[in-house]
């Protein structure tokens, strides 16, 4: 084991401390007696160690808000829109590892949460959604602000529950916590009819506990582990593909220890970014559609892939027929349904990534004999570095702006992003060294995610620097949350990589629709620096290379939300690129290559 593997990560220490919270109910936390169903809900939240809630008030959820009125241990953050609340809570869950909580009223409040819940579901983020509901006797009657929230959210929650009794509602919320957190994390929802939260009860909620029918695996089968270890030892071209599951399982230290001990190159998926330090010589960067050329070459030519906590999303695999076609796949996952869903696993290891990496480490007999392969990987790194052209004068290159912020900010900075080209540039040109620092919408690809996520992340980790990269299109979708950032005086830097277009769409239109830019150019976006000022934040406009340094300095220095409206080259595109459903090794490095493949 390397040194770093022995020293617990700072985040981890915090997480362990947080883990203990529910087991040690604070004596003072129940000074207020439980009088109503809503009190029981609040009590369950406290038992679960919640300190922040994100939401918007409304008729059906009012009893719960009322129960929070005299509550001093928890801070409710009123957001401008429920979508802001759910993304903030989601990010809170990502950076802390514990479920974030969002609240909304029935009907439109609940439906405004839907995108964020779907987002959390795709990315296996721990999230609790509490929604108000009309009184039970009105349910089914199309009552004012009624929506079948359970029906709507069933496909996008790990578990959802319509609360039916004030005596049980506290337990319902506790169960939602346990399920959001255990095994493969995910969103859970409790729908709270007003006639459940309002009436009297004195029943204390129990501790968060999962139902009997739910028992995620811990350790993988020992025999399967030893077989897999033999296959890895015998490999000549091994790689490790680290997915988001590595981060969720807090297994980054174990991953690093394993990789360095057996000298195996490591690449990450987009959600796995930060699981492995990119400055490490074994790092093969990021894989997939806009991953590095060298990672995608190695993926295609490996003979043994240790894939950990990844669901083999199509943006990663491209055409499954050409995905690691020579490789034995050792797939570690906590969710049996992920095994052989998209790519057949030759050696499935069902269990928690942290535990299984330890098991694998113990079972390994030899390091693979892979000098030639590592040399080959190095050659690819030299041949296909991430790169862009930078003329001396205007227009600004977005990649350069990302690099400059990266240089100016500490390693443990939390970076959030919206969805589009800016997200890909942030992903590619930031140097990722730590887990839980890359917060974006991976699976669902939700525009507008980045900025509210930055709010949640900052409130969760006030001591860390937080920067949000947004596109002009993405920022337009949730920029009203500036009111919240200003009210809470959050020290966040928002960088709008402004190309006056929904650039990623424009890029695809240019590449695959003969340049017909239907509905993708946005020459009417506001001046985002002025928009920021209107809300009471600081605004900067960045147009020239010689302003970059001082603007970055000023924005970072400003103690509060600062928006940098960076006017970038509107024609800049994201490369490398594997066209949708393509062969990963046939990535294009420019338009010219697109014609070739």
């Amino acid at each position, binding site marked *: 084991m390397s040194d770093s593997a022995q020293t617990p990560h700072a985040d981890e220490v915090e997480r362990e401390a947080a883990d203990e919270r529910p087991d040690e109910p604070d004596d003072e936390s129940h000074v207020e007696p439980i009088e109503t169903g809503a009190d029981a809900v609040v009590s369950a939240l406290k038992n679960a160690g919640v300190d922040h809630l994100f939401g918007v008030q409304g008729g059906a959820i009012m009893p719960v808000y009322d129960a929070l009125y005299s509550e001093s241990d928890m801070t409710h953050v009123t957001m401008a829109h429920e979508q802001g609340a759910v993304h903030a809570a989601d990010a809170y869950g990502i950076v802390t590892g514990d479920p974030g909580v969002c609240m909304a009223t029935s009907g439109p409040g609940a439906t405004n949460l839907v995108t964020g819940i779907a987002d959390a579901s795709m990315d296996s983020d721990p999230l609790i959604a509490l929604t108000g509901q009309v009184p039970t006797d009105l349910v089914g009657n199309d009552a004012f602000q009624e929506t079948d929230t359970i029906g709507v959210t069933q496909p996008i929650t790990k578990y959802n529950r319509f609360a039916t009794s004030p005596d049980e509602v506290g337990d319902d919320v506790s169960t939602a916590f346990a399920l959001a957190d255990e095994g493969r994390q995910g969103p859970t929802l409790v729908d709270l009819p007003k006639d459940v939260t309002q009436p009297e009860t004195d029943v204390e909620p129990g501790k968060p506990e999962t139902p009997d029918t739910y028992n995620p695996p811990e350790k993988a089968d020992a025999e399967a582990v030893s077989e897999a270890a033999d296959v890895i030892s015998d490999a000549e071209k091994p790689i490790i593909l680290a997915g988001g599951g590595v981060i969720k399982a807090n297994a980054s230290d174990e991953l690093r220890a394993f990789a360095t001990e057996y000298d195996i190159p490591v690449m990450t998926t987009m959600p796995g970014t930060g699981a492995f330090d990119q400055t490490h010589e074994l790092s093969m960067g990021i894989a997939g559609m806009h991953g590095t050329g060298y990672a995608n070459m190695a993926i295609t030519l490996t003979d043994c892939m240790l894939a950990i906590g990844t669901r083999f999303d199509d943006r990663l695999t491209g055409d499954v027929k050409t995905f690691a076609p020579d490789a034995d796949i050792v797939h570690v996952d906590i969710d049996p349904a992920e*095994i052989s869903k998209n790519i057949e696993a030759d050696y499935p290891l069902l269990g928690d990534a942290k535990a299984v990496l330890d098991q694998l480490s113990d079972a390994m007999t030899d390091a693979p004999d892979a000098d030639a392969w590592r040399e080959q990987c190095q050659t690819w790194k030299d041949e*296909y570095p991430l790169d862009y052209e930078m003329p001396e004068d205007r227009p600004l290159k977005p990649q350069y702006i990302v690099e400059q912020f990266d240089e100016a900010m500490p390693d443990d900075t939390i970076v959030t992003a919206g969805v589009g080209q800016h997200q890909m540039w942030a992903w590619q040109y930031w140097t990722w060294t730590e887990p839980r620092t890359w917060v974006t919408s991976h699976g669902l690809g939700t525009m507008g995610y980045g900025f509210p996520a930055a709010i949640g992340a900052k409130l969760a980790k006030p001591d860390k620097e937080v920067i949000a990269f947004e596109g002009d299109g993405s920022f337009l979708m949730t920029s009203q949350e500036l009111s919240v950032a200003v009210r809470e005086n959050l020290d966040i830097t928002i960088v709008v990589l402004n190309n006056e277009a929904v650039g990623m769409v424009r890029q695809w239109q240019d590449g695959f629709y003969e340049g017909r830019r239907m509905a993708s150019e946005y020459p009417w976006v506001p001046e985002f620096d002025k928009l920021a000022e209107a809300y009471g934040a600081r605004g900067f406009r960045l147009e020239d290379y010689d302003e970059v340094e001082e603007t970055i300095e000023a924005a970072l220095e400003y103690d509060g939300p600062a928006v940098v409206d960076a006017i970038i080259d509107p024609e800049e595109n994201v490369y490398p690129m594997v066209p949708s459903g393509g062969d990963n*090794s046939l990535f294009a490095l420019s338009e010219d290559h697109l014609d070739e493949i």
Partner: protein
Amino acid sequence: MTGKLPGPGPGERMRPEGRRNEDGIRIDPEAEAKHEPRRAVLSALVEHEPGVLAEVSGLFSRRQFNIESLTVGTTVDESRARMTIVIEETRPGIQQAKKQLRKLIPVVSVRELDHDSIQRELVIVKVNGEEPDKVHAITEMYGGETLDAGPRTITVEITGNEQKIDDAIDAYKQFGIREIVRTGYAALARGEQQTAEVEPEVKLTADSQTPADDD
């Protein structure tokens, strides 16, 4: 920015030798192996609570499993219900259906039933009543029962496996069938075997190899 030129273009890059099929399974590079779909009878024991049926059927439709029938009813234990789900899928599809089903919180156990399990369907057929004797003879032949007989219509019920029911319906066609309702399969494991027994493979390893998987 490094100012380096890109390396070899797409055409000049190293190529792997292998290939997978569309299910992500490694195959002979020359062949494009495809799995043929087969019928699988899944039995799930679930918590008997509101919304479970919707959850299960929602899962099957959103994951595009090819569902033939789904029946549900209570068990000896009043808090539990049993669902019999017949699907037609390729081997990976059947595996995936079992695993996804198993993931639902109210689902207690999932099991694929062997070919020798007891599988029965009920059909109610309403035919024209002009030839009551002939209708009766066919009903007898298939071990069915007459539920209602009037001057213009005769309604019968038949239970059995799919083949028997298909044959009976064929035989009734001569009279003119007015209406039909079929329940879909209800099934139990044969003999001492427990239908709800959770196969250890389903829970603990990825790729449970139930006997039926090999065909």
